[in-house]
C-alpha cells in the first residue's frame, strides 16, 4: 500500500472541474416551524473524500447530516447521491450509514448483535456475518467484549461499538456525528489517525461533524465552516487557516489579530492600509480592494515578531507597544502586546533557543512587525 501521505498529497478532486461530486447538496433549506436550521445550503462532496462540517453548537450540522441520512426531509432544495436524487427515499434504502451523536446502541443486544444488525437486515449468510463481525471487533479492539451488553461498557467503548456498527455494512458514505466526543485526549488523537487509515483502506467517503477545530484540521481533506445554517467557507485545512474568507472564519479557526483600517493606496499585487491603530500596513493581495474601502486585516499570532529594536521595515508593517502579558508554554511563548491606542495583540514565538539570558519581560517597550505576506485582507 502506498503511504498515506503520498495519496493525500495528490488528492484534490474539488479542484478538477470535470470531477463528478458524489454527494451534491443543492440549495437545501430546512425549517422547523419558523426557525431556519439550514439556510439555502449547497455543497459538493467527492468520492473518497474525508469531509468535515465544523461550526458552533446549534449551527445546523446535525440537521444537515440527518437530511443526508434521511431522518429529516429538506423543506426545499435537493440532495443527490451518486447521481440519484434522495428525495423520498427512506433511510433504510439509502446506501448511507450514520454514527449517532448519542451512539444509539441497541440496549437489549450484545455488542456482537449490535454490529451484526445491519448485515442481518441485508440477509447476509450467517458464516459471513460472523466473519465480518469478528473483523469489525478486531478493528475497534473490542474482541473481548463481544458478549457484553452496551450498559456494561465504558463511554469510549460504546463509542467504538457505534463506530463498528456503522462501518459493518461498508456503506458508500459514512456520516459521523461527533464521533470522538467521549474519548480522552490521547485516545482521541489515536482514534483520529485510525479513522483516517480506515477511510483510506476501505475507500469510503466520510462526512464528519465536529465542533473541535483541531480534530477537523487533522482528519479532513476539506472543511466546511458553518454558522447559522449557512456554509461560510469550504476549503482545505491550510486554506481555511491561512486564507480565511471572512472575519467569522478567521476568528473561528485558531487565534487571530484583526486590524481595522482603510485602504490608502493599491498597487499591483499589494495594498496599503491605514489602520485605526495608527500605523500603515502593506500586504500582498491578489484582488485589490478599492481605495477608501473599509477592510480588516487578519494576522495569526505566530506571524508577528516581537523585538526590542526597531525593525528594518519600520514604519511600514511595524508598531510600538509594551508587553502586557506573557504566557510561557515551554515550546513557545505567547506575548500580549499593548499598542499605543490600547489595542492588545497576540504574538507567539517558538523558543528555538534555550533559556535566553535576557528574556523579554513585563512592561518592556517593544516593536511588533510582520512580513508583507503575513496578513489576509478581509473585505467584510
Amino acid at each position, binding site marked *: 500500500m502506498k503511504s498515506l501521505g503520498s495519496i493525500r498529497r495528490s488528492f484534490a478532486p474539488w479542484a478538477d472541474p470535470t470531477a463528478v461530486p458524489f454527494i451534491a447538496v443543492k440549495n437545501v433549506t430546512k425549517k422547523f416551524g419558523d426557525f431556519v436550521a439550514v439556510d439555502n445550503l449547497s455543497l459538493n462532496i467527492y468520492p473518497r473524500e474525508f469531509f468535515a462540517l465544523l461550526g458552533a453548537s446549534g449551527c445546523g450540522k446535525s440537521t444537515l447530516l440527518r437530511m443526508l*441520512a*434521511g*431522518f429529516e426531509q429538506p423543506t426545499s432544495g435537493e440532495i443527490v447521491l451518486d447521481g440519484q436524487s434522495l428525495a423520498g427515499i*427512506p*433511510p*433504510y434504502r439509502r446506501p*448511507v*450509514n*450514520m454514527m*449517532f451523536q*448519542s451512539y*444509539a*446502541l*441497541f*440496549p*437489549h443486544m450484545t455488542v456482537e448483535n449490535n454490529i451484526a*444488525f*445491519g448485515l442481518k*437486515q*441485508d440477509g447476509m449468510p450467517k458464516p459471513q456475518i460472523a466473519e465480518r463481525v469478528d473483523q469489525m471487533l478486531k478493528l475497534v479492539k473490542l474482541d*473481548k467484549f463481544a458478549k*457484553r*451488553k452496551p*450498559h*456494561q*461498557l*465504558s463511554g469510549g467503548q460504546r463509542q467504538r461499538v457505534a463506530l463498528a*456498527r*456503522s462501518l459493518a*455494512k461498508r456503506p458508500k458514505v459514512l456520516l459521523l456525528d461527533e464521533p470522538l466526543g467521549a474519548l480522552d485526549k490521547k485516545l482521541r488523537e489515536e482514534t483520529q489517525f485510525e479513522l483516517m487509515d480506515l477511510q483510506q483502506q476501505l475507500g469510503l467517503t466520510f462526512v464528519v461533524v465536529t465542533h473541535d477545530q483541531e480534530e477537523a484540521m487533522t482528519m479532513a481533506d476539506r472543511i466546511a465552516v458553518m454558522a447559522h445554517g449557512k456554509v461560510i467557507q469550504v476549503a482545505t485545512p491550510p486554506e481555511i487557516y491561512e486564507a480565511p474568507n471572512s472575519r467569522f472564519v478567521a476568528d473561528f479557526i485558531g487565534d487571530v489579530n484583526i486590524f481595522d483600517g482603510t485602504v490608502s493606496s493599491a498597487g499591483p499585487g499589494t495594498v496599503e492600509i491605514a489602520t485605526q491603530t495608527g500605523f500603515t500596513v502593506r500586504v500582498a493581495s491578489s484582488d485589490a480592494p478599492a481605495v477608501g474601502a473599509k477592510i480588516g486585516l487578519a494576522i495569526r499570532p505566530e506571524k508577528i515578531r516581537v523585538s526590542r529594536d526597531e525593525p528594518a521595515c519600520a514604519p511600514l508593517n511595524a508598531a510600538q507597544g509594551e508587553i502586557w502579558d506573557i504566557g510561557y508554554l515551554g515550546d513557545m511563548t505567547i506575548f500580549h502586546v499593548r499598542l499605543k491606542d490600547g489595542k492588545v495583540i497576540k504574538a507567539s514565538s517558538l523558543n528555538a533557543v534555550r533559556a535566553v539570558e535576557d528574556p523579554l519581560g513585563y512592561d518592556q517597550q517593544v516593536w511588533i512587525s510582520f512580513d508583507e505576506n503575513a496578513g489576509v485582507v478581509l473585505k467584510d
Partner: protein
Amino acid sequence: MVKWSRFNIASIVFGFAFLYLPIVLLVIFSFNESKLVTVWAGFSTKWYVQLLHNQALLDAAWVTVRVGLISATVATVLGTLAALAMTRYTRFRGRMLFSGMIYAPLVMPEVITGLSMLLLFVAIGLDRGFWTLTLAHITFTMCFVAVVVQSRLLSFDRSIEEAAMDLGATPVATFLQVTLPVIAPAVFSGWVLAFTLSLDDLVISNFTSGPGATTLPMKIYSQVRLGVTPEINAVCTILIGIVAMGVLIASVVSRRREIQRVRDEQAAFAL
C-alpha cells in the same frame, strides 16, 4: 437506621391490620369445619374438596380465565398501538383531546361504562353472552394498558429506532426487533394489569354478560346474597393465593434481573 418508636410500631400494626385482617379472617374461616361461617369448629379442608364438585363454580372460574386471557391479550395489542400513536404522532390536530379521552375511562364510574356498553349491545342487536363480556373487558382494560405503555414510551430514546432504520431495517422490522423488545417489560405489566382487572371485575360484567357467561366474581356475589358459605371463603382463598403467587413471581423475576445487571456491571469494571 431509624429507631423503632412505639408510635412507629403501633402505626405499622394498625395499618397492616386494617389492610389484611379481613383477608386473614377469610382465609382462616375457609378452613372451618362448621357450616356457620362465624363459629369456629375445628380445622378442615372439606370445603376445598367440595369445591371440586361444584360444577357451577368451576364453570364460572373457567369463563373468568378465558375472558381474562382473551381480553388482556387483545387489550394489550390495542393499548400498545394507541400508546404508540399518542406518543409518536404528536403533531395532529386535536391530540390533546384524544389523549384526554384515553384517560377518561380510567375515572369513568364503572356503572356508566357498563350501562353504556349494555345500551350499545342492545342497540346493535348483539346477543349478550361470552363475547359481549369479552368485548366489554377489552374496552375498559385497554386504556390501562395504553397508560402504562405510554409512560414507558415517553422515556424511550427514539434514536435507536433511527439507528435501526439507518442500518436497513424497515419500519416493521424496526418495531419488531428494536422497539418491542425494549418496551416489552411495560407491555407485559400492561398485560398483567389488564388480566387482573378483568379477573375481578363485577360491575361491568354484570351489565354486559348474558346467560351461560357468569364470571367468578358474579357467581360469588350472587351466592353471598344468599349467605356466606365456607365454600365461598375457599374459592376466595384460592384466588388470593393465585394473585399472591403472581405478584411474588413478578417481583422475584425483576429482582433477579436487577441482581444480574449489577453483577454484569461489576464484571465490566473489574476488567
